[in-house]
């Protein structure tokens, strides 16, 4: 192997990790959700099943992540709108418990829509 050959191999070895990092990070290869509690936002991956207890303004809301989907399962509000919203799966889908000041938004890669009207 010539000197130039080694340079070429070196170049390739440097290029590959660069490509992986560049194209694959920033957003997980899967979707995540942003959970907003008051003014704090936490991002959590939907890749693993979880049951979360979030303490909001009114009390504790229970949020479940299962099979890449997320939903409210229990909440101290009266109307239970948040629970009625059901499972959220695709980027842009959203549910909120307004009395408890907790909201859940599903994130994707580049959100297809800038805003959702409903």
């Amino acid at each position: 192997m010539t000197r130039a050959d080694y340079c070429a191999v070196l170049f390739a070895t440097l290029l590959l990790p660069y490509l992986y990092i560049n194209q694959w990070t920033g957003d997980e290869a899967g979707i995540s959700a942003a959970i907003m509690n008051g003014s704090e936002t936490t991002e959590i991956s939907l890749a693993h099943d979880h049951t979360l207890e979030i303490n909001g303004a009114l009390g504790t809301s229970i949020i479940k992540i299962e099979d890449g989907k997320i939903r409210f399962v229990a909440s101290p509000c009266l109307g239970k709108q948040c629970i009625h919203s059901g499972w959220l799966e695709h980027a842009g889908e959203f549910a909120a418990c307004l009395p408890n000041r907790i909201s859940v938004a599903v994130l994707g890669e580049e959100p297809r829509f800038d805003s959702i009207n409903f």
Partner: protein
Amino acid sequence: MKPRWLSLLLIATLGLTACSEAPPQVHKAKLFTLGTLVDVSVLHPNEATAQQAVKIVEDELAIINSQWHAWRDSPLTLINQQLAQGKTVTINSVSHHFLQQAQTLAANSNQLFNPAIGSLVSLWGFHHDDRPDGAPPVKEKIAAALKQAPSMANITLTETTLASNNPAVQFDFGAFGKGYAIDRAVEQLKLAGIENAIVNAGGDLRAIGAKGDRPWRIGVRHPIEAGVIASIETNGDESVFTSGNYERFFDFDGKRYHHIINPRSGYPANDAISVTVIHNNAATADAAATALFIAGETEWPQIAKQMGIDEVMLIGNDLTIHMTPKMAQRIQLEIDDAQVNIIAGDS
């Protein structure tokens, strides 16, 4: 000499991989006000300016919320008390502007948009942020409220005074206030030099400008399933408002009762699942979406024409999508197998 071509190649490669452009940075913030979640998106190269813009929106919305809140103690509840007592209320020019717009919209909608039925709305229990599941009001009470027939036609409005000849008139601007507030907030944004933004209050929004070199893309949520039923690209300064039977409701005995009360029947309107309207003015779009929802599958074209709305999408109870021709040109359906009915237009 080897490093020369190596670095050239490296640069070329890096240049190529950088080809997937980063989208323009949109500053997003969520506010809790107007009884709902307000999403503000501002596109501005300066982060500090964008944050300031969000603050402007927050302040403006707070002002309007405190003035026109239908049930918490506010200038509005005071007005309602005075009107119930048959008194004439002194108003300022801002209120006059607000009330005049409401009155015109109500008239154009044949009073289907009726912000004077506050007592009926309260009867149904929707004067709480959070209405628990419980029984609907008894039909005698509804009939009694209906008989009194309060409407904006009972109102006499001058530059400085407001009077009503029907003591049953109780204002509830739920179907109009949000739009009005959004209009005011957007005006403030424009005054502050912001040209590209979206103010979305509980799903109803007004968008100005664009997202860099492409328009703002708005997804209209499916009224029943998860996901989006249609999408719209806004053009310039436009509002997109939807009234639906799924927004605020309570269930009782297997039946669902939602918050858009038909002033003619006294019961939640049930001739449509949702109505989406596009119009420049948010307040108009707000009132129109409500009025057209109440008008339902058969009456909506006439009311739309009267209100000067030419971009409407109404989803009927059987999920048929009715549209005006102009709406059909703009909107892109995101579902398959939709049953679509485009009404005859007059061009």
